[in-house]
Each structure stands twice: as structure tokens, then as C-alpha cells.
């Protein structure tokens, strides 16, 4: 059994499901599971963390924590770590987690295993595996030396536990006294609402160069909306200006591992595969039966996406209605 500190994340007043994954993995291994929740006006979210396995929730509520900055968040987490002495500190490999955790690691003088795709506990120790060379290989991480083990874990890697609403946690208020914060966030320009982020979605539908223009991506967006999927793209589609770079999947884009990845008119270049091959189920729709994408596809359709994708949307709609 280990003492584990989970960095909880919330956005717009809602806890992120990736936080539940981390809590579930820790609690189900019998660890003493703590969560820290940072923000402004977020006290109301603490109780829900307990449903997923947090025994103690440390709440750092302060106007200075309204917008994430690495400087402010790291100060709070590091001082809690000194007081609590956890053996393990985990966060999601989200935009926040990946920016923040190296600073925490530096301050604690310990190593960090980032973007882990497998994480478990063995005899009170965290055991993780992470991808290298954009998922063309993976390796186990050995932590050398003393101090807590730090890791960030990729979204969807652990699975969301079933919540137990009968559980409650001890709520501890953290005293926040920020100093020396130099960076300031002046504005957050929201992205398109409604559709999930490619890195977090449990289903991703991606399109390639063959979509021919930005408007045609509507075909994929409509299908995505039926099943709550995110829309991704190949680099060729991004370079052609059909989609913003933030939606690019691959070695120089986002690495995703959803439960279902549907590649429409994407050839399956090695750099694209690097970003999606760890998806649990892969579907490829492509006119060319020799396209390399079929080598990683669980289900392949040799056909024209302009005919298949709309038909698929109708079929999925029927399924959803039943």
C-alpha cells in the first residue's frame, strides 16, 4: 500500500473523467488515496472525487488559482507534498498536467515518467510503461533514487471506475499563500464548444487529404455528433487548411488512444500511425485496398468515404435510437 496524491483537474466547474481514472487505479489497488483540487470556487466538486476513490480531498481555493499557471499550482502542490509525504504523485498527461508536473518534479528533485500508457501498483510501488519513438516502442520506467514517484498518465489508459455515491471523503482546506508568480493569464479564448478534445474523447473520427476541402469535414462532424466523438485529421488535411493543427493526429500532432478510431480516407503513413495505433479498436475506410492503414485496422471497408460515412451516420443514429 502506498500513499498516493492525485492531481485532480476540472474545467468550467466539472471534474474531468481522466481524474476519475487515476483515482480508480489508486483506490482499487488499496492505496491511501488523496486528491488535490485547485481553483477558485471549486469546493463543491470535492465530494464527487470521493465517489471515485479519494479518501481525502485537499482543496486549494484561491482567486490566484482561478487560471492555471505552473508557478502558482506547483507552489501549492509542492508544499502539500512536503507536508503529506506521498510515495506517488500522479496527474493526467493533459495540457495542464504536462506543463505542471515537470516543475513539481524539479522542485522535489525527483524523476517523472510522463505520458504513461500503463500504470499499476506492485508492493506499494508505482509500475509504469511509456511509449517511446511516438509509440513505435514502449519501455518500463525504473525510478532511481529516493523520493516520491511522479507520473503523468495518458487519457483513456486506465478506464473509468464505477462511481460509488455512498462514499465520502475527508475534506481538508489547504492554506494558499502564493508568492513570486511572474506569469499572468490575461485571457482564455474558448475553442469550439460541444465536441470533445481529440486526446480525451473515447471515440475519434479522422479525415485525410481525400476529404478535399474543409466543408466536407461536415460529413465527419455529423457522424461524430451522433456518437459523441471528436474529429481528428491527418497532417495532409491540416497542411491543406481543412482543419486546425490542434486536431492533427500523429507524430507531430496529438497522440490519441480512444476506444474507437475511425480513419476516413487516410493512407496510414508511419507518422500518422504513431499517433493512433494504441487505439483499442481501429476502423479504416479507404478506396485503396493496399493502403497501409488496413494493416492496423480491426475493421476495414474498401470503399468511397463520401458514400460510406453518411451511411454509417444513419446506421449509428438507428443504433442510438434503440
Amino acid at each position, binding site marked *: 500500500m502506498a500513499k498516493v496524491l492525485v492531481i485532480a483537474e476540472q*474545467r468550467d466547474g466539472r471534474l474531468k473523467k481522466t481524474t476519475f481514472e487515476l483515482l480508480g487505479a489508486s483506490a482499487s489497488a488499496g492505496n491511501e488515496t488523496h486528491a488535490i483540487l485547485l481553483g477558485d470556487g471549486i469546493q463543491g466538486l470535492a465530494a464527487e472525487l470521493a465517489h471515485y476513490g479519494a479518501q481525502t480531498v485537499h482543496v486549494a481555493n484561491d482567486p490566484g488559482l482561478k*487560471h492555471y*499557471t*505552473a508557478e502558482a499550482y506547483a507552489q501549492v502542490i509542492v508544499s502539500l507534498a512536503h507536508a503529506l509525504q506521498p510515495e506517488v504523485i500522479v496527474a493526467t498527461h493533459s*495540457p*495542464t498536467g504536462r*506543463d505542471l508536473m*515537470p516543475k513539481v*518534479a524539479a*522542485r522535489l528533485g*525527483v*524523476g*517523472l*515518467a*510522463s505520458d504513461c500508457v500503463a500504470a499499476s501498483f506492485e508492493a506499494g510501488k508505482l509500475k509504469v*510503461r511509456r*511509449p*517511446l*519513438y*511516438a509509440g513505435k*516502442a*514502449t*519501455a518500463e*520506467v*525504473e525510478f*532511481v533514487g529516493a523520493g516520491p514517484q511522479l507520473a503523468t498518465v495518458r487519457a483513456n489508459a486506465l478506464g473509468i471506475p464505477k462511481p460509488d455515491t455512498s462514499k465520502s471523503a475527508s475534506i481538508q482546506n489547504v492554506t494558499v499563500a502564493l508568492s513570486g508568480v*511572474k*506569469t499572468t*493569464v*490575461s*485571457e*482564455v*479564448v474558448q*475553442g*469550439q464548444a460541444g465536441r*470533445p*478534445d481529440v486526446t480525451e474523447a473515447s471515440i475519434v473520427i479522422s479525415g485525410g487529404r481525400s476529404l478535399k476541402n474543409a466543408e466536407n469535414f461536415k460529413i465527419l462532424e455529423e457522424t461524430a455528433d451522433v*456518437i459523441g466523438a471528436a474529429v481528428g485529421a491527418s497532417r495532409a488535411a491540416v497542411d491543406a487548411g481543412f482543419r*486546425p*493543427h490542434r*486536431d492533427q493526429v500523429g*507524430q*507531430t500532432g496529438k*497522440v490519441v488512444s480512444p476506444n*474507437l478510431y475511425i480513419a476516413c480516407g487516410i493512407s496510414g503513413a*508511419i*507518422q500518422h500511425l504513431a499517433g493512433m495505433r494504441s487505439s483499442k*479498436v*481501429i*476502423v479504416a475506410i479507404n478506396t485503396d485496398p493496399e493502403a497501409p492503414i*488496413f494493416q492496423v485496422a*480491426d*475493421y*476495414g*471497408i474498401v*470503399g468511397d468515404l463520401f458514400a460510406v460515412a453518411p*451511411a454509417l451516420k*444513419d446506421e*449509428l443514429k438507428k*443504433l442510438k435510437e434503440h
Partner: protein
Amino acid sequence: MNIYVCIKQVPDTETKIKLNTDSSGIDTTGIKWIMSPYDEFAVEEALRLREKNPGSTVTVVSAGPLRVVETLRTALAMGADNAIHIDSPESADSYRVAKAIAAALKKEPQIDIVFAGKEAIDDGAAQVSQLVAEGLGIPYVTVVLNAEYSAGSVKCRREVEGGAIEVVTTPLPALIAAQKGLNEPRYASLPNIMKAKKKEVKVLKEADLGVSDADQKIRYKNFQLPPPKQAGKKIAGDPATQAKELARLLREEAKVI
């Protein structure tokens, strides 16, 4: 301004990865090495900042075995003024590399800004930038899409969750980690490639920087290649039949819908 850029040498994105015989690492024979793509944006940004501030110098620094000098020369050919090679072992982790880079930069007379990539495409750690900044005691802004420089500060637009853009201002000195879109990196011209070959590359040993094996915090072991995929199912028929069958399989067999 004294401008610094951290650059990493990585295998070309086309590389097929093979493991060594005892799976303790990869087989590096025959690998073509390149500058990590995000570091190209970092170098370009440094060069543009120098152009706007006459009298500035751009120094590129890379830690790794002797081969990384070739990548330093690529940056010199793009237009960097100076290069520092930190002789670190192949197996050095982020912490050790960052400690060495920070120590090397501390030897410099003055640092105004440091550029890096948002992540290296080999280990994808996304750590070294933050660790270097921390080692230097300066703030950082990562995943930067756009930067506006004014005297003593930089206003950055950075990519965050769900396609949102955060506007962050940091005083200088600071470290800026580049995302694709920051700029369009230039190609090195042939005359510059020739000139770069003759430029001196300063070499620093880990021992000169107070870095040793004791700074290694993580090690990789038991490498694995992704398990080969079973041949998938091809779904035949006209588009309507194919779509119907696919939807059925996704629900009943794969259970993902």
C-alpha cells in the same frame, strides 16, 4: 539580446524502430538523425528575434553523444551564431540533460530568452523545457503558437484544452517552448551549410557542469515493440450494407458503441 535555443537530435520520423538483442534499448544502427521538428520552430523564432534586435546573438545547445554535433551544424547553417555541445550519454534522462543544459547556460554572461520545442519526438517527454527553466530560476510558457515581444516581456498565445487559446504574459528572461504554427522554419542555404562546417562548436563535459550518474532519476528497461495486429475483418458489399454491418460489429462484437 542573448538568445539561446535547446535543440535535440532524434531519429527521422520515417525510422522503423528495432530493439537491441536484450531489449534494453533500441538498435540505433542505420538510423538517420534529424533535428526534432518542434526545435526547428524554436531556432526560427530565435533567428527572427535576432533580426528584430540588431546586435543579438543566437546560441544553440544540444546534449547527447558526439553525433548531435551534426544537428548543431544544421542550426548554424540556418543562421545561429554559436553552438554548444554537451557531451551526455545516450541514456541520460530528462532531469540529467536539463541539469546539464541549465548549468551550461549559467556559465554564459547573460540570458535574455531561451527557446525550446514543446516536446521531442523521440521520448515525447515534454519535460526538458520546464526543467531547464526551473534550473535557471526563470518562468516558462509551453506549447506557444504565437509570441509578441516587447521590452522586458513576452505575450504568448498557447494551446490548452479543447482547442482553447490562453494568452499568457511573462517577464524576461523566460523560456518559450514552441508549438507548430509559431512560424515557418527556413531552410539552410548551401553557402550557409558550407560556412557552418567551419564554425567552432564549444564542447562541455558533464563533469564541467557538475552533472553525474547521481542526476539520473529514471531509466528505461524491458523495451517492447507494439504487438503485431491480427489481420482485421474486411467488410464487403455496397456502401449501405458495409455501413450497416460495421455499425453492428462495433456494437455487438467490439462493444465500443
